[in-house]
């Protein structure tokens, strides 16, 4: 009896190892990369957010010097497939505080229009399929038809 049970254990051990092994991988089913341009020329820096239309984590990408980007979720490359609203925000280099008072730098001038920075107003909506996706974001200075500029308010 005990011999049988232990042999059962042995047959189960490869399964156990497999579970352990897969437990450590866990990547996302889709990947997205592409380039971002504004009025035809590639952005040199900036932040891209992939905000899911379904429950799940938001994913992000930093724009590299040549305008290219690759989406990451947390520390992993890729993201879950699904529908996403994409927001983009790029600023000119921030102005360092030279007074020696240790103040934070002044944020640089905003390059990309504000409607691209908010989920509510961004016209960039894409469906990400399982596997690799190429999404090239072509931003323009022409506002979308339903764009209402936010009222300026003092903080």
């Amino acid at each position, binding site marked *: 009896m*005990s*011999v049988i049970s*232990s042999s059962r*254990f*042995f047959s189960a*051990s490869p399964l*156990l*190892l497999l579970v*352990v*092994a897969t*437990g*450590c991988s*866990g990547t996302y089913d889709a990947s997205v990369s592409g380039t971002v341009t504004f009025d035809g020329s590639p952005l040199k820096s*900036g*932040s891209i*957010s992939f905000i899911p239309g379904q429950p799940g*984590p*938001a994913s*992000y*990408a*930093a724009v590299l010097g040549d305008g290219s980007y690759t989406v*990451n*979720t*947390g*520390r*992993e490359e890729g993201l879950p497939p699904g529908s996403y609203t994409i*927001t983009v*925000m790029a*600023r000119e280099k921030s102005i360092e*505080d030279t*007074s020696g*008072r*240790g*103040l*934070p*730098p002044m*944020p640089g001038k905003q390059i990309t229009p504000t409607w691209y*920075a908010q989920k509510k107003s961004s016209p960039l909506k894409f469906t990400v399929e399982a596997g690799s996706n190429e999404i090239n974001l072509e931003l323009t200075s022409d506002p979308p038809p339903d764009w209402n500029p936010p009222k300026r308010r003092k*903080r």
Partner: protein
Amino acid sequence: MTFQNLMQLAKSKMNDYVSKWTLRFAGMLLCVIATTSLTGCGSETDATAIVQGTVTLDGELAKSGGIVFHSKGSDPTAYGTIGGDGSFAMRVGRGNADNIDRSKIYAGEYTATVTLSGPPVANEEYPGAPPTPGPQLSSSRYANKATSGLDYTIKAGMNVITIAVESPSEEELAAMVEAAAAEEVVAEVSEDEAEPEASPKPTSEAATQAVETTDENDGAVDEASDAVAETQEEPSS
């Protein structure tokens, strides 16, 4: 007792022996599998949760800084370092040495605090001295667990979160300017005070002077040691 009976007895003893041995072996194997599976994902024994995410500052990816997860229960505090693309992975202690992104923390309720700061600035006044910390980029309310408002429920397995923080408010900036101005005034005052005391030299030099003059004149010792005391106090004031 017949020969057959004897054989049967031997067989059953043998069976006992075999089963005991196999059980022992199975136990050992279980231990090996258990330990390898643990070390494969980090050596934290009861930590079951992976926490990864992204920190944004005013909607843009943060570039550097640190995150602390304070347990609302009694779980160990977890730490995260923000990479150049705003991403982070939390860890307890040194985390998973093989793959820091696979570090595990304890599942439970946490309040997070976040501090974002700019790159350290080289010390121009004293070359060779350690660089002064970079400017604070995030509002200090995120650095205090009573005011951060960053509460998270961490479950076993993969947790992906976004931590959105804002830069210091106008009031905070005004307070920073005021503090810097007050510091400058203090520095100027202490410099003025130090001037009459025959050029404030580094502490060690002043100390050797004090030792040297000991035999010559007792009064000079007092003067010199006063100067030592003052130069030592200077940084704290």
